[in-house]
């Protein structure tokens, strides 16, 4: 029996080792045609958070991109008949995985452009590879200003673009909306100290809110993934805030909203695009808790724009669910890239980069987009309010 036990133990150890390795990184391929582009195909890399904490961002964006490419291929492709071949990799929301996925797509799959990732941290990691190999990268939703401009040297990163507005813009618009439309005078801010996105929004919002005549009565920081917000919220309640600004991602936001409402805090809560997730109501402990909350976002599904509505319909038909802002931005990203390839007249990465940099009045579904000298788009910011769990367009502010 002794040897059987030993073997069983060894097998267990091996199994555990395998589980550890498996847990570290998973890669998925969304296309069966991989490898070097043929004469009639153009390879595009799609590098996304398809698992992990922000999996819904990446999945929605990727699905919309694949939908756009499918439409484009059906209409005859690009550059007079070339088909687009998307190669999808999952980076699990980890910076190092995003970087190695980008390298793999460029060196092994010879992609001419990279789309994604969804979040700023992962995009910056992937962008180092794009810059190294001189291949343009477009993030649909990386909102940190540092993504396109190096914060130290203030130099624009040549190969990095985005189709969403940047964080300071949404914080400025948020503060303006809080003071003018909600009439807030005393704001509390709850932000994640371990997240650049959250910290950036916190800084700009505070500045703007004070400039607009408000007062910040409580500032509470937490670490992303924290579970217990009751102590901090108890303090916020005591400070008598008439608005709580929560610039964080939906996982944390859900917990904060849920616990705030449980503590009897009924004041409006305002956030940013990180709130946008179909899971928000579930995490917030029910749709009712989300009433009287607002967030700045890239688009609203209820916007009557006919092209947007056509996209919403096509997305729902294909994937059987509502598209969110990440999906809409992903769709714009795919079309913006194809527009640039057409204008460049070639699938050469350098030519595509130049065409992207000179984009003017591109007619996207989220807004008209002009790429400025910092590779940021000039476009509309939508303010969404949650009504019984449904995202409703409150107003649009151009910035």
């Amino acid at each position: 029996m002794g040897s059987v036990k030993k073997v069983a133990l060894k097998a267990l150890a091996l199994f555990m080792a395998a589980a550890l390795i498996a847990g570290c990184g998973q890669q998925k391929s969304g296309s069966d045609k991989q490898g070097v582009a043929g004469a009639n195909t153009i390879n595009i890399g799609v590098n996304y958070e398809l698992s992990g904490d922000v999996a819904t961002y990446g999945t929605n964006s990727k699905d919309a991109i694949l939908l756009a490419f499918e439409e484009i291929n059906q209409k005859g492709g690009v550059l007079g008949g070339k088909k687009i071949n998307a190669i999808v990799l999952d980076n699990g929301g980890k910076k190092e995985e995003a970087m190695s996925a980008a390298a793999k797509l460029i060196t092994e799959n010879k992609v001419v452009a990279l789309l994604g990732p969804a979040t700023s941290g992962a995009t910056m990691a992937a962008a180092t590879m794009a810059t190294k190999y001189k291949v343009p990268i477009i993030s649909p939703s990386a909102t940190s200003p540092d993504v396109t401009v190096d914060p130290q040297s203030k130099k624009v990163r040549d190969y990095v673009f985005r189709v969403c507005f940047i964080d300071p813009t949404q914080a400025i618009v948020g503060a303006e909306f809080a003071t003018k439309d909600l009439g807030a005078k005393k704001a509390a801010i709850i932000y994640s100290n371990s997240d650049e996105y959250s910290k950036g929004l916190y800084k700009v919002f505070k500045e703007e809110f004070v400039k607009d005549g408000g007062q910040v009565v409580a500032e509470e920081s937490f670490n992303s993934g924290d579970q217990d917000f009751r102590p901090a919220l108890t303090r916020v309640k005591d400070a008598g805030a008439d608005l709580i600004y929560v610039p964080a991602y939906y996982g944390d936001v859900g917990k904060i909203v849920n616990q705030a409402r449980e503590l009897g805090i009924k004041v409006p809560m305002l956030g940013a695009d990180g709130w946008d997730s179909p899971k928000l109501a579930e995490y917030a402990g029910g749709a009712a808790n989300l009433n009287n909350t607002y967030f700045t976002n890239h688009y609203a599904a209820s916007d009557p724009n006919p092209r947007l509505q056509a996209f919403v319909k096509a997305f729902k038909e294909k994937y059987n669910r509502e598209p969110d802002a990440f999906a809409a931005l992903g769709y714009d990203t795919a079309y913006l890239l194809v527009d640039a390839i057409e204008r460049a007249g070639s699938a050469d990465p350098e030519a595509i980069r130049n065409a992207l940099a000179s984009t003017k009045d591109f007619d996207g579904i989220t807004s008209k987009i002009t790429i400025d000298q910092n590779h940021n788009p000039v476009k509309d910011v939508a303010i969404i309010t949650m009504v019984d769990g449904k995202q409703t367009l409150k107003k649009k502010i151009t910035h």
Partner: protein
Amino acid sequence: MAVFFQQIINGLSLGSIYALIALGYTMVYGIIQLINFAHGDIMMAGAYIAFFVVVYLKLNIWWAFIISMIGSALLGVIIERVAYKPLRNATRLAPLITAIGMSLFLENGGLMVLGTDIRSYPGGLITNAQLPLTLFGIRLTATTLQLLILAITIVMMIILQYIVHYTRAGKAMRAVSYDADAARLMGINVDNTISLTFALGSAFAAVAGILLGLYYNNIQPLMGIMPGLKAFVAAVIGGIGLIPGAMVGGFALGIFETMVSGYWSSNLRDPIVFLLLILILLVKPAGLLGKNNTEKV
């Protein structure tokens, strides 16, 4: 003052959950001097079993508690039999390392099987209404869930005290904990007694896991790590190996932690809690209730 009492309410709920987890740590330590690092992950398994019971079997939360306790107890016993029992006569370091391995196995296995998605228990499992409390003329807010957590914890502790002090199995546990060899000579089945200890501790962990899932409105495969470590700290604060120590330690840590976040900063909470662990180990390694040797289990 209202803020202070409100923070005490917040701390009591959290402390109850820590105490429930700490009980499992301390019982296992008491009986085989093993720090079962997989304990927090058994808690996670318990939370998931309950999730599947309410979502797929569509049973109510009380059935979820019962089935999850049984399931987790089985899991605890299997882990003990497979991973710890063969090492019973090895050096003390060997089972400790195995426990860490088992913990990583459950976490990563959980990620593999359950995915990284965060899930929430369906709404309406328990009525979670706000209770306006008035204490010394101060108006406070508690929820029915917070009261339920406290009540369940106290009931569980009474049950445990009963089992340990007034049943034959409890007497056997105390005997094995006091001297395993002598207990064996007296005809006590030491292996079964150790398994029973794991079963009890794991069932408590399951309850803690479900309460944590309800309290934070989310469960995920790595949910056991932090509360597991915190409960370990709680067990050490109270005096590891002592059942009343785990209770006192759990409540003390929950309230202490809430006060640190409430009056200082949420970012300092974890560093200070683990600093406290180091301080206790340096100054009073036996824990707050450390001298009391008679209740060792």
